[in-house]
């Protein structure tokens, strides 16, 4: 089963406006395995056709490389999900801390002040979280495409 977004962090996803990855790392691993199996099956056919003649199975090697690439993709999807969950949790903690810090300044008045402070700081917390997630995505995409 692929890594899913915990229900408790769903409000943070909405708050940040940066969606949790819809990738399925387990399906990617299965796809990779199927590429390996297909390459092996085609190698058998080729061996049967070659009737003992030596041959170079270039297409099969490339199929296996494709399968390996899919498994690496599964790791990347999983890592991206992990970083996203971490950032969601950090954002939730920052929001809670913002409210709590204001609320600890004293009494009922302090609590109200803390709520106001939290509301004031929420956009900054949101922006920081968004920038962190965007930076991760940008670095990953650049690494993939260069």
């Amino acid at each position, binding site marked *: 089963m692929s890594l899913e977004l915990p229900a408790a962090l769903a409000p943070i996803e909405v708050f940040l406006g*940066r*969606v949790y*990855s*819809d*990738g*399925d*790392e387990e*399906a*990617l691993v*299965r*796809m990779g395995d*199927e590429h390996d199996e*297909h390459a092996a*099956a*085609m190698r058998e*056919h*080729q061996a*049967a*056709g*070659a*009737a*003992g*003649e030596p*041959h170079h*199975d*270039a*297409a*099969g090697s*490339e*199929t296996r*490389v*494709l399968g390996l*690439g*899919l498994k690496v*993709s599964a790791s*990347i*999807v999983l890592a*991206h999900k992990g970083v996203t969950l971490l950032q969601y949790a950090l954002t939730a903690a920052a929001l809670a801390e913002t409210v709590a810090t204001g609320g600890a300044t004293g009494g009922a008045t302090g609590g109200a002040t803390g709520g106001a402070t939290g509301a004031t700081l929420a956009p900054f917390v949101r922006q920081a979280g968004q920038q962190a997630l965007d930076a991760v*995505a*940008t670095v*990953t*995409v650049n690494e*993939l*495409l260069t």
Partner: protein
Amino acid sequence: MGDGLRADDRVRPRRVARGVATTCAEAAARASAFHERMAAYGTPWGVNNPVSRALGLCYRTARDEHAARHPGHPAACLAGRETVGRAGDGAGGGARGTAGGGAAVAGGVR
């Protein structure tokens, strides 16, 4: 016989030709089933974020490049069958070359 060939020399290439055709057909069927299964997976890398879209782009590019380098069935298969058919119709000495052609045919179905 006028051409100096025995009956065996005529039968063997035909037998090999039939074997290659069978191997080719089986390989083509397996390759077709494989491509259908892969298509059924859809986009497991995801589509709702830039990282997933980049992964999808990489996979499609690699897959298309692979397909271009190894065109596979039906072109290679049909060409192989023609070669094999000629070898089968010809007399003797074709078995070795025909088997090699079979390898190319089976290898081309990806």
